């Protein structure tokens, strides 16, 4: 036998078996996700290029007609603008407030477990149910905010804001509810980031003479930045794709001032029956999310220090 053909590469049977095992253990999850995420996604793209409706099974390819119609539709642009405003403002607030709260929670104090419980409540309550609570708080006749405002004198006798009925107020209210439900998550994540800064660094900064603001701006924030960006990314994904808060509180009104892409896709595709157009609208979410993810993750990687 030729020497060189005698196996140079000795293959360990154990290694092969483990590779096979690894694939078998991973396969079900991957197949499931491919089937239930990948496949419908491709279907959504296909529908957006078709004339699918809820009513009939017929399906014809129509090219970019749906997209054209959408781009000429002012409501679409309104909902895109609203979605961006909604996401940007609420996430800005969430990150800033989350940072403040995380710093306040960083030190130990009596009753911290109770505070943690109360702070987490908005996040763990089902979104639709929490929103209903706010629906009652914003009620046009019985709003507790209005009552308290009048009773305490903060509101004049003629001041009775219709929180969900007036255009700018409605957006503000919806933003407030979104901030309310995402604040706990951001806080907990940022707190974890804060806790991972070694105490030595804080001590060194103190000995080196850094005051409160210098410490915050030059030491504290740069070191939690990677985690803050991750919290921001999660918040953006949850908010930009959300339709629950809007559905429960305003149904997109008044006059589409709180309509966002996700809710508009629902009303058009399911309630309105035009599956194709609904699919086309919802697809606009994807590229924007991917862009945000790439941007924030690269930024996070760049600010990583270890």
């Amino acid at each position, binding site marked *: 036998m030729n020497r060189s053909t005698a196996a140079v590469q000795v293959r360990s049977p154990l290694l092969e078996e*483990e*590779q096979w*095992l*690894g694939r078998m253990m*991973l396969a079900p*999850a*991957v197949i*499931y*996700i491919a089937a*239930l*995420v990948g496949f*419908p996604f491709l279907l*959504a793209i296909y529908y957006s290029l078709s004339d699918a409706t809820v009513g009939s099974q017929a399906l014809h390819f129509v090219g970019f007609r749906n997209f054209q119609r959408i781009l000429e539709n002012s409501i679409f642009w309104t909902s895109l603008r609203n979605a961006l405003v909604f996401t940007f403002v609420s996430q800005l607030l969430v990150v800033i407030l989350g940072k403040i*709260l995380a710093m306040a929670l960083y030190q130990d*104090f009596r009753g911290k*477990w109770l*505070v943690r419980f*109360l*702070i*987490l*409540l908005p*996040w*763990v*309550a*089902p*979104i*639709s*149910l929490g*929103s*209903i*609570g*706010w629906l*009652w*708080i914003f009620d046009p*006749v*019985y709003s507790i905010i209005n009552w308290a405002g009048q*009773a305490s004198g903060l509101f004049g006798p003629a001041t009775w804001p219709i929180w969900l009925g007036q255009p700018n107020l409605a957006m503000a209210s919806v933003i407030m509810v979104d901030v*309310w439900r995402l*604040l706990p998550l951001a806080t907990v994540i940022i707190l*974890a980031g804060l806790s991972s800064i070694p105490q030595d660094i804080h001590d060194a900064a103190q000995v080196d003479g850094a005051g409160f603001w210098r410490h915050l701006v030059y030491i504290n924030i740069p070191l939690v930045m990677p*985690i803050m960006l*991750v919290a921001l990314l999660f918040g953006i*994904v949850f908010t930009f*794709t959300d*339709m*629950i808060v809007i*559905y429960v509180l305003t149904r997109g009104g008044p006059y589409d001032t709180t309509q966002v892409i996700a809710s508009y*896709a*629902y009303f058009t595709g*399911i309630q309105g029956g035009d*599956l194709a157009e*609904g*699919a086309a609208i*919802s*697809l606009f*979410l994807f590229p924007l999310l*991917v862009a945000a*993810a790439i941007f924030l993750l690269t930024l*996070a*990687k760049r600010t990583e220090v270890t």
Partner: protein
Amino acid sequence: MQMLKNIGGRIGHFGIIAAFTAFTAFPFYWMLITTFKQTNDLINVKNNPFLYNMPPTLENLRILFFDTQYMIWLLNTLGVGVLVVMITLLLAVPAGYSLARLAGRWGQQLAIGIFLTYLIPPTILFIPFSRIISNLGLQDSLWSLVLVYPSFTVPFCTWLMMGFFKSVPKDIEEAAMIDGLSRFGAFLKVVVPISSAGILTVIIFTLTLVMQEFVYALTFITSSSQLTVSIGVPTFLVRGDVYFWGSLMGACLIVSIPIAILYNFFVDRFVAGFTVGAIK
């Protein structure tokens, strides 16, 4: 001077915490009061809403449990939850282990890839799903939810389990294999029991995700007896223009509090899962 600074700092600290806690907890407090208020007390604009001007009542809760299908929705949600938890565990636990131990170089890439599925949210997929579900004949059935929900629980739970498994020292598995177990045997008999905390976290997280889900349930299910709590309460507890606020608030509270209590036990591990993988 230093003392004054300290006291000022303490008050400021307390003030900030109090303000935030009030913001997050107030709606629940408000729900609590409203649940026990008599309807006439509630709708009388002249009454101070913070006080029980008429004696508190259990009537709203009675209506909730006996005059509506709330109990059925709770059972539906629980049923779906349990089944989805089982499916998720079956898929995510082995997958997590595979990525943690057996995947080698492309393990990390694949892990990130799995997580990127969240960039394709339910609010894109619900439209094609509405067709798929009706074609499968699962329209208006809770089984549609059982089928679809793992699509958003499995990726994150796989990631969580991967983190947990990575933190189990390799020595323990290797000792088991030297003692005669196969790799899979070591996984089943040694690694999984050690990671029970991680598995519990996955269970709780999956249950809360199921309870919160709205879009798919709204799209797939219409008959009132097949609803989950998340959908049933906002859509069916409102009769025409009349909102039964007392019952509504009670409904929300009853679901939220137990989840909150459960969650509190596991929030640390949950966040560790979130953050550990995100940066690497």
